[in-house]
Structure formats: structure tokens, C-alpha cells
């Protein structure tokens, strides 16, 4: 099966003949393909690479491929190491007693009814609405994200808040999250 980049024309842009400097256009487009998520780190990366490419008319595509591969690795690594929650966090998630589950309650991720499983393991996130998910379904998400899939709240922040509200100064921080 072709990769997303192949499918979405990264290679076909090599044949671009519309621009005055087709190779440079291709570089920009190729980079944009990777840098379409506007986080600061990616913008900085893209700026520095765009800057270093400005002024080069003929780009060695092997070099470009190497650059893109290493960029991709950096971006993927970042998302895997920095964005998820810890295993301890997952272990501490509140487990929902099966008696609290209604017959037609469904997991928002797999869309199955919890009670399809005779022994469901359902957890509650520490977001305001205490959204529920199959443990099996929420773990792969929390390994790469800190947010509740339903309300998008950073589930790691809320746990720390009770510690913060002791002083007035930090009450302001509270409002920032509220």
C-alpha cells in the first residue's frame, strides 16, 4: 500500500514545470507536507530549513529525502515521547463499577456497548464530565495525547490543580484553565 506521501503527490511534484524555479517550489511543498501542524517547534524547524534552502536553485533530491526522513523521525519521536501520559497515570485511572453502566452505554472510541463484554474494564478520565472509555480503547490514545477525546481537556492538568489553589496568586492560574 502506498504511503501517504506517495499517495498525496510528494513524488509527482518532482515533475512540476510551472514555477520559475521548479526544484525550489518542490522543496517548499515537500516540507509543507511535513510541517502542516503549527506547533512552535515545527515552525522553528520549518523556518530554519526554509531559510537554508532559500537561494539554492538546484536541490539534490537525495539530500532532500535524507533531510525529510530525519525531520520525520524528529517529529514522530517528539510526539511519542512528549505528548502522552505516564504509565502511572494510566494505572491510577478511576475504574467504573459495572453496576454503574447502563445497558446501552457505548464506548465513544470503539462504539461498542460496554456490556457486550461480559467483563468490561471501563475507566473514567479526570476531566470535568468524567468521560468514560474502555480501558483498552483509551490507553493507545493517552500514550500519544494528554487530552480527553470528548472534551479535549488536558487530563494531566486537572489532577495537579488541587495543589495549586492554596495561594491567591495561583487562583489566577486556575482561571486560566477554567
Amino acid at each position, binding site marked *: 500500500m502506498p504511503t*501517504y506521501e506517495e*499517495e*498525496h*503527490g510528494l513524488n*509527482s*511534484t518532482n515533475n512540476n514545470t510551472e514555477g520559475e524555479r521548479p526544484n525550489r517550489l518542490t522543496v517548499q*511543498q515537500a516540507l*509543507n*507536507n511535513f510541517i*502542516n*501542524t*503549527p*506547533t512552535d517547534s515545527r515552525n522553528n524547524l520549518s523556518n530554519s530549513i526554509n531559510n537554508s534552502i532559500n537561494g539554492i536553485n538546484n536541490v539534490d533530491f537525495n539530500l532532500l529525502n535524507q533531510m525529510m526522513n530525519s525531520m520525520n523521525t524528529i517529529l514522530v519521536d517528539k510526539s511519542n515521547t512528549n505528548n502522552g501520559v505516564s504509565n502511572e497515570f494510566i494505572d491510577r485511572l478511576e475504574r467504573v463499577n459495572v453496576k454503574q453502566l447502563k445497558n446501552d452505554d457505548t464506548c*465513544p*472510541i*470503539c*462504539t*461498542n456497548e460496554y456490556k457486550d463484554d461480559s467483563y468490561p474494564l471501563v475507566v473514567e478520565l479526570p476531566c470535568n464530565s468524567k468521560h468514560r472509555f474502555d480501558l483498552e*480503547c483509551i490507553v*493507545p*490514545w493517552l500514550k*500519544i495525547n494528554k*487530552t480527553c*477525546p*470528548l472534551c*479535549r481537556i488536558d487530563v494531566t492538568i486537572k489532577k495537579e490543580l488541587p495543589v495549586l489553589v492554596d495561594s491567591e496568586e495561583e487562583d489566577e492560574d486556575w482561571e486560566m484553565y477554567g
Partner: protein
Amino acid sequence: MSSLPKRIIRETERLISDPVPGITATPHEENLRYFDVLLDGPSGSPYENGVFKLELFLPDDYPMAPPMVRFLTKIYHPNIDRLGRICLDVLKNNWSPALQIRTILLSIQALLSSPNPDDPLANEVADEWKNNHDKAIQTAREWTAQYAK
């Protein structure tokens, strides 16, 4: 290829039995993760009366990863480049596994109604959209009439 998760089967069934107005999504027979999508241009937008073809692919790690979607029909829009790639937050860093194919397609329909030239994917189109708005709308209408039939 591993067997199709129940969620995908359920989503597909619902897309067919209870379609979103103005959107049809039909899975390929030989690969049920691959959909042909037809999207009506929203009324009141320069894409009105156009029917746009898109393709949608559910990667192996869906729903942990978002669907991959692109326009096949040429479209003049500041957030869609000439390869049909779509700049839309829910398809990237704002994806959530609680979103579904239908919510994504609705978001794309909404993007046609409300382009965002400040977060462009097609830079020249975005410049035109901001600096020469009437002409940009006119071009979008012409492209719709020409390509989105």
C-alpha cells in the same frame, strides 16, 4: 490486512443508511477502508451547485489516527492546495478518536462555507482571498462551474 474493526463497519452502515445531507461516502468493494466521497458545495458559498469528489482512507491505526482525505476535484480554496490536500485542524493536531467519518466530512463541508485565509495551505489563493476578495470568489465560482460537475 487485518479484519475490519466493528466501529468501521458500523460507521459505514450508518453512512449508507442515514447519510449526511449533501454528502455520500461509498466504500470500495475490494478495500473497505477506502471511500469515494461526493460532497455538495454548500449553498451560499461560491461552491454552491458544485459536486466535489474526494477520497477518504482509514489508516490501520484509525481511530487513533485521523482519516486521510483529499479532494480529487479541482477547487479554488485557501485551505486546499492544488494536490487536493486539506488544511483542517481536526484532520491533524485536533483529531480525536471520538470523531467519526461523518463528523470529518461535515467539517470539510463547513470549511467550504467558511474558508480561513489566515491559515492557508494554498498561499497564492489565500493572498488573493485577502487582498482581492471579489475576484477570488469569482474564480472559486468559475472553477466550481468548470470542474465540480
